[in-house]
């Protein structure tokens, strides 16, 4: 069912003529009346988005009137119960070369999908405004639709809603095509029993078309899916590694700072220690000098006394003794020398007293 629906959306002019289409095939004789409003597009069950867009282009219409939008939205529950046509319209508008109807169609699809999502209690419970990134918001919507994707009956509508939302967010809210694809793949891939590999491929192609007009990119993107996922894992790991490196950098910076602080403190302590050592050394030198000077002064004092004893005193007494030992003794000489000795002794005593 899904395959058919999506095939219709991507149909070529040949595909539009396929008998598998649900829309009634117009007769050749009576050319169908051009569709100039959304209401008309959705009211005609067989109308294709490509045809609708061609009609409005030909008739020089650049947008949709508010009443038209309201009317189309009003009838959308019946006219597009599986939301396939709305999604197809948005997709076709994006695929056009000039993108003239991309914004009006996407805005309409947005309004329509919101109206439809508001019927989902799990969606209502979401607080999308709290989520900062488009990726998070898209994944939240995908999770809100998880239950419906598991039910075969609800699955087409849910899938189309998801696709429509993806198209809008990729083009209007900077949701990356890769993120959209991966979220879609995860939403579908987790329920493989309900879908098929072809679903995934087509979804990827759809989003790729929405995001790129280059025809050669689609197969590449299809092939690249596993690598994209792997690269995201790698990127996530890189992010983690980066953040870990940043943490380590921060820790290293902190440790470096601590180390520098410690080194600075060590230097200060070393400097204080050096100053203390210098002071101690200075005191030690001063002590050595003082001891040296004291020893010298003591030696000088001893020398002075020795000089006195050895010089004047000894000489005078020796002479006095020589004078007394002679026969007859030379008393005046002995007296003189003893007087000299006495004077010298008194002089030395005075000097010793002066040292006190």
């Amino acid at each position, binding site marked *: 069912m899904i395959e058919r629906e999506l095939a219709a959306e991507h149909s070529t002019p040949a595909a539009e003529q396929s008998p598998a289409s649900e829309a009634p095939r117009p007769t050749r004789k009576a050319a169908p009346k051009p569709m100039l409003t959304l209401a008309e597009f959705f009211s005609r069950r067989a109308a294709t988005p490509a045809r609708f867009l061609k009609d409005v282009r030909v008739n020089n219409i650049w947008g949709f009137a508010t009443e038209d939008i309201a009317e189309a939205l009003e009838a959308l529950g019946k006219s597009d119960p599986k939301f396939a046509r709305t999604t197809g319209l948005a997709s076709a508008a994006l695929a056009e070369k000039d993108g003239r109807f991309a914004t009006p169609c996407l805005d309409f699809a947005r309004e329509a999908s919101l109206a439809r999502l508001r019927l989902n209690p799990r969606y209502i419970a979401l607080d999308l405004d709290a989520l900062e990134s488009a990726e998070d918001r898209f994944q939240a919507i995908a999770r809100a639709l998880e239950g419906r994707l598991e039910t075969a009956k609800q699955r087409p509508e849910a899938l189309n809603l998801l696709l429509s939302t993806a198209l809008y967010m990729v083009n209007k809210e900077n949701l990356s095509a890769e993120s959209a694809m991966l979220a879609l793949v995860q939403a579908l891939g987790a329920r493989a029993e309900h879908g098929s590999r072809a679903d995934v491929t087509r979804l990827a192609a759809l989003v790729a078309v929405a995001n790129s007009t280059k025809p050669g990119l689609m197969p590449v993107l299809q092939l690249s899916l596993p690598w994209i996922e792997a690269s995201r894992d790698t990127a996530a790991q890189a992010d983690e590694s980066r953040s870990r490196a940043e943490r380590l950098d921060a820790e290293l910076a902190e440790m470096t700072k601590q180390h520098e602080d410690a080194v600075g403190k060590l230097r200060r302590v070393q400097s204080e220690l050096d100053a203390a050592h210098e002071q101690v050394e200075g005191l030690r030198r*001063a002590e050595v*000098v*003082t001891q*040296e*000077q004291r*020893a*010298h002064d003591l*030696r*000088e004092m*001893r*020398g*002075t006394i*020795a*000089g*006195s004893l*050895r*010089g*004047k005193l000894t*000489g*005078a007494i020796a*002479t006095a003794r*020589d*004078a007394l*030992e*002679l026969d007859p003794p*030379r008393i*005046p*000489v002995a007296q*003189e*020398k003893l007087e*000299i000795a006495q*004077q010298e002794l008194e002089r030395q005593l005075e000097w010793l007293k002066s040292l006190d």
Partner: protein
Amino acid sequence: MAEIVGLDFGTTNSLVSVVSGGRVLALTDAAHGNMPHPSVVWYHGTEVVVGREAKAQLSAPALGVVGDVVRSPKRYLGRGEDLVVGGVSRAPSDVVAEVLRYVRQHARTQGHDFDRAVLTIPVGMDGRGRRELRDAAAKAGVRIVQFAHEPLAALYGYLRSQEDPDALLRELDSQLVLVFDWGGGTLDLTLCHLAGRSVTQVVNMGNDRIGGDRFDERLQNSVVQRHLDQHDVRSNVEVEVNADRVLVERCESTKIELSDRAMSTVFVPHYLRTDGPARTLEVAVTRSQLEAVTSDLVDEGIRTVHDLLRRVNRGPEAIALCVTTGGMVQMPGIRERLIELFGARRLPHIEHGDRVISAGAAWIAEDRARLTLAKPLELLHADDSYVTVVPAGTTLPIEHETYHQPLAMYCVDPRDGYAKFHFARPQWPARIQQGDQRVPYANLAITVDPSAKPLLERLELSVTIDHDLVAALEARSSLFADEQRIEIHDLEFGLEIP
């Protein structure tokens, strides 16, 4: 850093001093009354005795070689002759090394194991003497960091002993200072000029006829003569063994005693080898008698001062300060004469005047004061003007340093085949004019090409001053390639005060 001491290697005595904690410590001989060590060596058999014990062997206060004793070996340095001591030929540097080794060993016993010294030398010691003295010091294990002339060391020692040396320096700026050094061997006078923080020698004069030993000799002769007269001894009477040595000691004691008292008796029992009262020498000597027998020596000393002043056309009033050192200045008669000459204010009493040279050397070592060239070394130009080759004030080399100055000039008149160099110095150290009187240093002649035009032949001259303060002058002619070299050994020095 190892200690650098000041070593006063004097004619009669040697003394080591060190600066410790801002004080000068003189490493005197404490066992003998804080006296310096006599510069005497006694070759006693295989034993070498130095100092007081060696001096005690002398029976007369003579200098030089007496038997196997050498007193004042310094005076033999630089003569190029060996000494014959007790019949053995000895190099003067070996004898000097014994004295230096002894004072070094003595210093070691007082805790000062030095191997570098600022060594003082007399002004009259020329470059040859300085070289030999350095060799002698090396033999004793002493490296001479710098020579310092005795008068400069004495003046520096006096300045550093003042409470405010800078104030005294300011007071003496641009003035003349006389260093009066009357020691045992000689009277040395040096007139110094102070300019800022620089001291330069102006003129030196020495007199070795009136050393302190002459005073002792005069006293001894006088005492002996009076003794002989008292006892009417006319015939030749022998003196008892060792009696002369006792007489020397007793006369020295008497001389010292007469510093404090008016009279002292020289008493030597058993002096003459004779019977009767003449055997004992007993002569009373008064201070005036001592002064009378030595007055001509003192007069000659004072005359030497006048001669010195006359040489520079100055009177005693031109002397701002007279720094006295040497053992003789303690003699009251000499001090009184100097006070008469200069007045007491200009003749400060210097405590331990006999140590001031050693103290100055120690301060020079401590302060790293450097010798400078007192007067410029000049070269006479062809136009009869003097050009400076080495400027005055040039810092002179210390140990292992060399001063080198190359010059180039051209021969003005080569006609006689010679280029002649005449080197001289001004008589006065400061404010030198072209017309000032010069004192010649040396002449040098080199062969040049007589056929060359004037100012063609280039002459190269180089002046090198080594750490022995000897200036070597080398000249070379470029065309004739002749080379000649002479040395100047009598440069005059100053001291830069840090």
